[in-house]
């Protein structure tokens, strides 16, 4: 959520929903995760209401930027091919600064593309369901996910894995 007033509304709706349905809270999970799951649904609803349009600019956002990565025959330009990520993902995830970088990279994506990516990769929602809920065509979804992955990978590489500062911490 990029606009604070929308975030505030959603948090408020979450608490309302929690108060209304508190009888159904069985204490199987912590209150925190219970509230988070309600909030997640509210966020999904919000995006559903926003409608179906993905502008072309959303999808074009990466095309030019990445054309230098490949030689005209379609192979990687060796200078710009993926870099070997070190240290491993498990190690990196313990660093608070890494999450800041991750969040910054995510915020550079067009909002809808970032949202679709998180539904798929954070929540593990099936692609069919994302298409249904957000009313987008499967083809459009493939493109969005591909661009999101490509852009995020690139951004993390440039701002974390290739950044000498991260080794000093």
């Amino acid at each position, binding site marked *: 959520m990029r606009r604070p007033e929308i975030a505030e509304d959603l948090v408020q709706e979450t608490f309302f929903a929690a108060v209304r349905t508190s009888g159904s809270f069985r204490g199987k999970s912590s209150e925190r995760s219970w509230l988070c799951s309600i909030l997640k649904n509210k966020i999904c609803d919000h995006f559903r209401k926003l409608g179906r349009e993905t502008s072309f600019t959303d999808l074009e956002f990466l095309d030019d930027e990445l054309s230098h990565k490949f030689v005209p025959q379609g192979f*990687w330009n060796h200078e710009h091919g993926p870099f070997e990520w070190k240290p491993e993902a498990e190690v990196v995830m313990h660093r608070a600064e890494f999450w800041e970088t991750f969040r910054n990279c995510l915020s550079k994506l067009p909002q809808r593309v970032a949202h679709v990516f998180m539904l798929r990769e954070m929540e593990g929602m099936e692609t069919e369901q994302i298409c249904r809920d957000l009313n987008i065509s499967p083809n459009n979804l493939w493109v969005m996910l591909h661009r999101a992955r490509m852009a995020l990978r690139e951004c993390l590489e440039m701002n974390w894995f290739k950044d000498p500062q991260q080794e000093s911490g």
Partner: protein
Amino acid sequence: MSGEYNPSPEGNPSLLARRNRFQTALVKFIGRHTPKCREVVRILSQSMDSKLSLTMRIKLRLHYLICAWCQRYEKQLHELRKFASSVPDHVDDFSADTLSPAAKERLKEALREERRE
């Protein structure tokens, strides 16, 4: 034939490169019979969401012999998934934003109203 893949072995992390005649021939052959990297990255993204055919999976394995970059790309897509799915465990690092004191007051007030009704 133009557009044939015949990469330099210099600083090349791939298993096969132009290191001898045998390798050169093999690299060219695999380059001709597997998708180009630009296409491979697209296919790899799809493979995160649906199962690829056996033929395609074999083609990718072969392609990795001549292209360590695409192999890294695949590994990194899985790492991206690992990162994204761990966000809920790291929300506090992920965002330091909290509701402003004024917003908290508004929220409490609204909840009190709701209770009264």
